[in-house]
């Protein structure tokens, strides 16, 4: 029993050489930027890993409305390789283009002309987001049952419910109450949802194997929608005082007549959610890219010389562990900052007096 620690450490050290051995079988030139970008971009099939020659891929459904009606089928029906004209052919005149404007997307070939159909397929990002939503719902709704079954005067819950209550309480005391002030209960559900959605997606993105490992919050359309929600909630709940402060602020008259301050204030309504969107997107994207590049270092060096690969794998794994710890911290901080800024914007829109 007392040798367990020693044995585990020895096993982990011996595993450090394995990635280099895997790299040596590849040979040839390695296109790292392509590999890194492929792990981060959205795609129609979920490529899990490549064991030797065979790629393990989870084929996701394609849901497309082309000129011939609705088509729902699996990605496996697209050809593996692209044909002479650069299309991976599939059924019903649909193909995945590999070059040009629509590279990587499904197009419909109408007499040789590319047309983008109405495409609501389940892509990798969508599938990962659905899995993360199921995880999130389990984490929140199962503890919520405890509160329905107990009265307010019972002692506090322990275990998982207590843990979730700890986080929710922290968010509410330190972010929502100071941000909004009076009447914060109305906006608590939205802000808590924001926080937990971003936190769950960030954390699941750090795990390297399925069901995690998808780049959800590093996708600008998802962060765009989150920022849009904050924008809509802020504008809809803005009081008359809020709008008056934007278009007719209490500043000396010359600045009001030539509408400098009102114009600046009006533009800032849009730039604040825009900054929210870019901050979250860039932080998550940078974290994922750095992790991929550090792991890819092993393969780059391994392609040059197998022994280089062994040596560099130790350094690379240490660096990757450090980067993962940093990514954990960044995941929490980004969720915190997004929710805090949303609470502040809501608070500015909702305050009665000044």
């Amino acid at each position, binding site marked *: 029993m007392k040798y367990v620690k020693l044995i585990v450490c020895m096993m982990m050290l011996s595993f450090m050489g394995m990635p280099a051995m895997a790299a040596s079988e590849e040979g040839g030139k390695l296109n790292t930027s392509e590999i890194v970008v492929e792990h981060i971009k959205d795609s129609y099939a979920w490529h899990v890993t490549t064991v030797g020659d065979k790629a393990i891929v989870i084929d996701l459904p394609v849901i497309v409305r082309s000129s011939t009606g609705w088509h729902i089928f699996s990605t496996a029906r697209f050809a593996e390789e692209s044909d002479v004209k650069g299309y991976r052919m599939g059924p019903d005149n649909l193909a995945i283009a590999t070059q040009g404007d629509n590279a990587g997307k499904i197009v419909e070939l109408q007499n040789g002309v590319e047309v983008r159909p109405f495409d609501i397929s389940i892509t990798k990002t969508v599938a990962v987001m659905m899995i993360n939503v199921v995880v999130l719902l389990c984490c929140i709704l199962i503890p919520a049952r405890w509160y329905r079954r107990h009265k307010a005067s019972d002692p506090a819950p322990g275990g998982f419910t207590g843990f979730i209550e700890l986080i929710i309480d922290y968010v509410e005391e*330190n972010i929502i109450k100071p941000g909004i002030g009076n009447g914060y209960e109305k906006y608590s559900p939205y802000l808590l949802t924001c926080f937990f959605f971003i936190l769950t997606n960030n954390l699941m993105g750090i795990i390297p194997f399925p069901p995690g490992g998808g780049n959800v919050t590093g996708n600008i359309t998802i962060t765009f929608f989150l920022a849009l929600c904050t924008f809509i909630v802020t504008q809809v709940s803005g009081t008359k005082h809020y709008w008056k402060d934007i278009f007719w602020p209490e500043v000396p008259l010359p600045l009001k007549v030539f509408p400098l301050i009102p114009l600046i204030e009006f533009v800032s309504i849009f730039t604040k959610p825009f*900054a929210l969107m*870019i*901050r979250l997107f*860039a*932080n998550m994207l*940078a974290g994922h890219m750095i992790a991929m590049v550090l792991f890819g270092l092993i393969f780059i060096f391994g392609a040059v010389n197998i022994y280089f690969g062994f040596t560099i794998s130790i350094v690379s794994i240490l660096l990757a562990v450090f980067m993962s710890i940093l990514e954990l911290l960044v995941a929490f*901080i*980004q969720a*915190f*900052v997004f929710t*805090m800024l949303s609470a502040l914007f809501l608070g500015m829109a909702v305050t009665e007096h000044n």
Partner: protein
Amino acid sequence: MTTLFIILEVAGMALAKIGAAIGSSIIVLGASYGISKIGATALESMARQPESAGDIRSSMVISAALIEGVSFFAIIICALVILL
């Protein structure tokens, strides 16, 4: 004169990449200077008044995240210059 213009035209792509790379190093300089100032004053004030160390620590983290957000704007522009 026209030779100069032709050479500049051809070198346009490479010049853009040099510009983007130098731009991103300037961004790192600016962001790290700003965050280091925050860190220094936060440590100083935590040493002066240890009871409010928790509050100061959270404010420091939040301000650092906001400054990082601004620097990411500029990083995205540099990345767009290189890729497009």
